[in-house]
C-alpha cells in the first residue's frame, strides 16, 4: 500500500461531509443509536442539535423514526455500526424504508473484518447481501475519503433509499483530487488486457497493489473500481470480460451475496468468463489486528494476485 498516502477513514469522511451538507441543506436530519462518536455523526449533532437525534440503543426505532421523518419531507441519514444498522433492524428497513421507498440513507460504519479487535459480533460481513436484496435500494461502498464524500453527497441529492458502507480504519487515498464519483458508474483505475480485478471499499487499494505486482510478472491487469454495488455498472463489466477475458472480484464481505455474486450474475448472463473471488468463504472471523485478520482470512493484495493467476490459468487462449 506504500504507493498511496494514508488518508482519513471513510467514516471520518462521512462525518465531515455531513456537517457540510447540514450547512447547505436545512432539510437534512441525522439519527444515531449511541455510536455517534464512532460513526462520526456527533459532529453534525454538535453543529445542528435541532436536527440530530440520538435514539439510544434502539436501532429498530431509529429506522422507523427515520422513515416517519422522510415521509414528512426530510432527508434522513441514519447511522450505526454496519451490524446494528442492517441485520439488527432488517425487517424495519424492509417494510418501513424499502417497501415504503422513503428518502432514508442508512450509512453504516465499522463494516467488514477490519473492525478488528471487537471480534465477530461486531464484524459485518453480511450487510451487502442483505441490503442489495432490497428492491429499490441503492448500495454504495466507497474506497477512500474522496469517494466517500462524493458518495454521501450523491445520496443526499438522490431521492430514495440508500445504503452506504463505511469502515473503521484509516485507508489509503486511491483517487486523485479531481475524481468525479458518478452513481452507478464503475471507474477504470488502471487499464489492462490480461485480467480485470474488480473491487471496492477497503480492498480497492489491495487490488491496485496486486495489479502492480502482476505487472512485474508481465501480466497486464485492469483494475475496475465498483463503488456502486447496486445498481451495477453492467456495461463496464461486460467490456472488461470481453476485453480481458478473466475477472477477479475482491471484497471485504462474504462471498455469498456480495459484490462477487453480483458481478457473477451479470457476467453469467451477458458475457461468461473465468472468474476468481477474494472474499470470506462461509466463515465468521475473530478478534485481532485488522492487518492480521485480513492476512488470516485471505483478503490481501497477495491473495488477489494469486486469484488472478489461478483465474488466468482457466482463461481460453
Amino acid at each position: 500500500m506504500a504507493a498511496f498516502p494514508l488518508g482519513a477513514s471513510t467514516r471520518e469522511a462521512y462525518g465531515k461531509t455531513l456537517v457540510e451538507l447540514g450547512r447547505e441543506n436545512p432539510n437534512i436530519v441525522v439519527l444515531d443509536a449511541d455510536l455517534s462518536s464512532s460513526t462520526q455523526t456527533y459532529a453534525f449533532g454538535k453543529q445542528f442539535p435541532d436536527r440530530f437525534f440520538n435514539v439510544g440503543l434502539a436501532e429498530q426505532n431509529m429506522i422507523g423514526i427515520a422513515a416517519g421523518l422522510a415521509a414528512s419531507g426530510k432527508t434522513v441519514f441514519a447511522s450505526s455500526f454496519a451490524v446494528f444498522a442492517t441485520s439488527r433492524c432488517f425487517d424495519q428497513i424492509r417494510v418501513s424504508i424499502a417497501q415504503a421507498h422513503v428518502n432514508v440513507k442508512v450509512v453504516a460504519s465499522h463494516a467488514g473484518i477490519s473492525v478488528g479487535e471487537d471480534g465477530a459480533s461486531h464484524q459485518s460481513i453480511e450487510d451487502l447481501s442483505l441490503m442489495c436484496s432490497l428492491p429499490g435500494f441503492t448500495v454504495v461502498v466507497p474506497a477512500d475519503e474522496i469517494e466517500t464524500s462524493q458518495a454521501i453527497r450523491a445520496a443526499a441529492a438522490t431521492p430514495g433509499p440508500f445504503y452506504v458502507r463505511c469502515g473503521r480504519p484509516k485507508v489509503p487515498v486511491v483517487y486523485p483530487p479531481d475524481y468525479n464519483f458518478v452513481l452507478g458508474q464503475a471507474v477504470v483505475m488502471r487499464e489492462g488486457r490480461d485480467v480485470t480485478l474488480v473491487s471496492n471499499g477497503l480492498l480497492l487499494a489491495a487490488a491496485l497493489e496486486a495489479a502492480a505486482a502482476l505487472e512485474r510478472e508481465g501480466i497486464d491487469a485492469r483494475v475496475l473500481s465498483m463503488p456502486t454495488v447496486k445498481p451495477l455498472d453492467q456495461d463496464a463489466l461486460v467490456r472488461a470480460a470481453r476485453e480481458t477475458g478473466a475477472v477477479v472480484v475482491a471484497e471485504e464481505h462474504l462471498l455469498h451475496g456480495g459484490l462477487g455474486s453480483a458481478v457473477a450474475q451479470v457476467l453469467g448472463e451477458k458475457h461468461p468468463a473465468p472468474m476468481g473471488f477474494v472474499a470470506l468463504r462461509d466463515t465468521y472471523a475473530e478478534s485481532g489486528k485488522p492487518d492480521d485478520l485480513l492476512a488470516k482470512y485471505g483478503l490481501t493484495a497477495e491473495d488477489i494476485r494469486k486469484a488472478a493467476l489461478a483465474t488466468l490459468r482457466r482463461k481460453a487462449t
Partner: protein
Amino acid sequence: MSNPQAPAQLADAGASTSLTTDQAPGVEDLQRMARILRRHIVTMIGRANSGHPGGSLSTVEILTSLYFRTMRHNPADPQWADRDRFVISKGHGAPALYAALAEAGYFPIEWLSTLRQVDSRLQGHPDMKRTPGIEFSTGSLGQGLSIATGMALAARMDQRNYRVYALLSDGECQEGQTWEAAMFAGHHQIDNLTVIVDNNGCQLDGLICTIMDLDPLAAKWKAFRWHTLEVDGHSFPELLEALDVARSTKGGPTVIIAHTVKGKGVSFMENNNEFHGKAPTPEQVARALEELA
C-alpha cells in the same frame, strides 16, 4: 375539531343516510357511519375470502371518531401539508381503514370490492404507494409507532401544528420496538402524538392474558412518561372526549387505551377468535349484514 379546509363529512354511502350540513356530526350520525363501515368490512372480507374481520370490526368506532370528527384532513387533497396524520400500525385492520377512507371520499366505494385481488389498489396490508389516504405502509407489527413519532417530530421541527395519530393493537404491545418508540416519544415530550390501543384482549393464537400478558398496560405506558386514558372503545362520547383531552394535553404524548370487543357488531364474531384471520362464508356474510341492517 373543525377543519377550515373542507372538512370530511359523512358522505353518502348507498344504503346510508348522508349528512350534508356544515355542522360536526353528532353521535347518532357517527353510529350510523360505524354501521356502514361494519357492513363494508364484512362484505369486502367475505368477497376477498381472506382478511382479518375480528380486529377490523373492533376498531370501527375509533376510526369513525378520527375520520369523521376529530382529524383535520381533506380527502380531496390527501397530501395537504397541514393535515393530521393517521398511521395504522395494526396493518391487518386495513379493511376498516379502507371503509373509512372510501366513505370519507379518498377513493370510490367500488374499490372496496377489489380488496386483496391482483392489481387492486387495496392491498391485504396498507400500502401508501397504492392507496390515497394511507399515510404509511404497515403490516409487520410493532413498526407504526416509530413512524408516527417521526412524523410528529417533523411537525415540531417544521413548526407545523398537525397532529399524528397511531392505532396499535394490544398484541403488538408485545413487540419491543413499540416500547423503543414509546420511550423516545416520552423522552422528547412529543405532545402532538396520540396513540390509540385497540385493546380487544385477543391475538392470533388466543387470549393475550394467557399467551403473554400485558397487564397492567396503562401503567406500562405511564412508566414511559405517557399521559394515559382508558375508555370504552365502542362509546363515541368517551372516545371523542379522550381525543379532545389528548389534543389539549401538553408536555408529552397521550395514549388512549380503548377497551374493545374483537368482532364487535356481529354476534357470532364477537370475542370469537376464529375470526381473527378468517373470512366469513357467504352465508355468514348474509347473516352479518342482517344484523347490521
